[in-house]
């Protein structure tokens, strides 16, 4: 979708508070309305029903919060990238805030393929809603990391299957006690197999349930280096190389 002499821009945004209950699709529609409110010169697809050229990164489940969501939007002409965060935040629902914007190189790899690691902050309770013992949770985390496999049950196309998500769990550790539960920090891969926070918590065992989940960072890994998606494919760098 990129190229065609357009001006792609990557945005980072947060989704926090009550607004976490809206779906990925609802967020997409809110952005489309915000672009129109601010009269951003969005490029449209050709054809019978033109659509704005916007592509989102990994979906965030209903109910999860995030400090690090991304989307790429293609503008038909250059825009003041510095001014975008404030302008768009004003036009978006409360709780969705655009934290950063960067002009993107033409044909930069799509977010969904490029992002390979996610960092999460999780809060867990027991199924009865009680705060578990932090040490017990820490032991469960340690034994999960020590295990060679971590099987989780998944339903795909109505069929139950069992998949090993151990390769996706790069780190998980207790970070303290929150308002109602124990706080965990986890680093999870997205490929070749991913794992959802709820699946990780179930795999830890010990009658834990997810109370809150917040995505705190997404990373693109290239040649052993971690790049924040806003910095991964800057437009200027490509132009500099071309000249």
């Amino acid at each position, binding site marked *: 979708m990129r190229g065609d002499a357009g001006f792609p821009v990557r945005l980072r945004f947060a989704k926090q508070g009550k*607004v976490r*209950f*809206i*779906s990925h699709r609802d967020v997409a529609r809110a952005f489309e*309305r915000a672009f129109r*409110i601010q009269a*951003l010169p*969005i490029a449209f697809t050709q054809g019978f029903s033109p659509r704005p050229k916007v592509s989102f990164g990994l979906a965030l489940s209903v109910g999860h919060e995030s400090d690090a969501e991304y989307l790429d939007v293609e503008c038909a002409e250059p825009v003041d990238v510095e001014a975008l965060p404030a302008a768009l935040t004003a036009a978006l629902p409360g709780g969705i805030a655009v934290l950063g914007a960067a002009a993107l190189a033409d044909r930069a790899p799509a977010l969904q393929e490029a992002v390979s690691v996610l960092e999460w902050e999780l809060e867990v309770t027991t199924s009865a809603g009680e705060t578990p013992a932090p040490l017990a949770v820490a032991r469960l985390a340690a034994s999960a990391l020590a295990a060679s496999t971590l099987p989780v049950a998944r339903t795909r196309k109505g069929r139950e299957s069992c998949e090993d998500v151990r390769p996706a769990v790069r780190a998980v550790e207790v970070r303290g006690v929150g308002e109602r539960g124990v706080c965990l920090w986890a680093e999870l891969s997205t490929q070749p197999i991913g794992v959802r926070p709820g699946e990780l918590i179930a795999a830890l065992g010990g009658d834990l349930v997810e109370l809150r989940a917040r995505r705190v960072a997404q990373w693109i890994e290239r040649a052993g280096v971690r790049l924040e998606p806003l910095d991964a494919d800057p437009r200027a760098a490509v132009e500099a190389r071309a000249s």
Partner: protein
Amino acid sequence: MSSLWPRIEPLLAGVEKPARYIGMERGSLAPEHRPDAVAWLLVYPDTYEIGLPNQGLQILYEILNERRDAVAERAYAPWVDFEAELRAHDVPLFSVDTHRSARDFDVLAFNLSAELVFTNVLNCLDLAGVPVRAECRAVADLLVIAGGHCAFNPEPMADFVDAFVIGDGEEAAGEVTEVIAAWKRGGHVGGREAVLHDLATVPGVYVPSMYEVEHDGPRVVAITPRYPDVPERVDKRTVADLADWPYPKRQLVPLIEVVHDRLNVEVFRGCTRGCRFCQAGMITRPVRERPLDQARTMIVEGLRRSGYDEVALTSLSSADFSGIDGLVASLVGEQAGCGNVGVSLPSLRVDAFTVGIASEIQKVRRTGLTFAPEGGSWRIRQVINKLITEDDLYAAVEGAYSQGWRRVKLYFLVGLPTEMDEDTLGIAELARNVIAVGKRHTKQASATVSVGGFVPKAHTPFQWFGQNGVEELRRKINMLRDSLRKSSAQVRWHDPEASFAEGIVSRGDRRIGRVIERVWREGGTFQEWSEHFRLDLWLDAMAAEGLDPAWYVTRHRTEDEVLPWDHIAAGLHRDFLWHDWQSALAAHGLPDCRWTPCYDCGVCTDYALEHVVASPVPPAGGSQGTGQDLSRGGSVPVALLPARSAS
């Protein structure tokens, strides 16, 4: 007065569409409640997705919040899963704006847009912690107010609603606020009786407890006020000029998808086409068109601030807006905001000219067009006063298929007065001909035929008509389905059992309140939803109350019978309605009075009102029965049609 959000939030984890309960729409407000301001909780008694776009509720929300003596927030009926959570955790009904408990408000005000939502009103009252029966409420309980089209027959809800506002609410809401504010300031002196008595003297307000109902056997024989200063007849409120009320100014933009999810700008209120089955057309007279410039400003401003890329010009028949040419031309010529803006006319008139307008404004996403001929033969269309000829319809669909539409949807009613099987089979004939027209243009031509069972409504010429029973409606629908089995028309139909339950309530009297309460107590909420509708609950409740469903639903009424809504006036003279009913039985049509001489239905003369039009010439394309050439458009001299006799 604190927010219930901390108690609500944990309950949202497992429910369907939790965003129904978070509010946060663009345009929503977080008003500060003050002791000297009357706090209104405006409740739409159906799901958020159905209720959020309701224009009446949004208009009152803005008008009340602009006042110094009022604040207003909104609530919607919680879906069954969330209701169970609320009840299990003892959380009351709450506002979506600031998540305040309903108990923190002074007034619960309901929009009654359909009869089958009435059980949801009781459920919301119960969730709010208010005794459902008005007579059981104490001074500390909220005042329960209702308005909307179904308030024109308030009797079935008389046991539960303290006061009804009949007609347009823009002015009445303020006057009701002033009465309640004075009562609040005075320390509720005189109790509920005092404030209800005062409310009963506000024009357009009906307080059922101020009236005695007398029965003779099953019949109502009189409804009379208990005090001399309470009016014998409550006349509806009508705003004389829509130009004074450019609302909503900040239409709410929901975060999740809702029905009519677009900018909606009301271009006129009222309708004078005179379709005899249509309660909305009868009770909202006269026609009040919005000035062209104001409509344009509301559209342009609304698109800019909402970010919507679609605007609907709303009314009961938007192609009849006398300024439609100019409005459409200026919208199409303009690039409003970024991207392509779609314009839609939710109710299309059945003629080629209207399709021309539709084609001009729907440059993109040209998928389906909807027409409502309503009746299958010219004879029955004269009975219902929907004066569309077959040629009008074929010209309209010819226009649609030739300009790129591939599918048309046709709306019909069955169970109409004087209906014979040939009228029903005429629907199939029309559908087959429509498809044949389409096939000349595209192989993919298709048509959907939607059939609803007719339910007679109060304040219409058909209020005396005995509705078709479940079996009769089912027989007609099946006959139509059989007749169209081999065609490429798709038939969709409304459940005749739901039409029957609607019929119990739509012309019900005060005794139907007990029935509604029983249905609610048996768990019968969301009766508008086919997965929750249960006719057996209604029939069992009727039996338990010793009431005969046939007496209410399928019985023809006589001219001398006191109707349960006779003390409520929509401005239409009873003589006019009866005469129009007799004309219907004789299959005589009646033209649109906006462009032809007045036939004195009573509304303009009694209320000293006039039709307000945006343009001095009739809409291009004309209106029904005015003798204009519908196929060409333009302003043709207006003349009455020679009376057509029934064939």
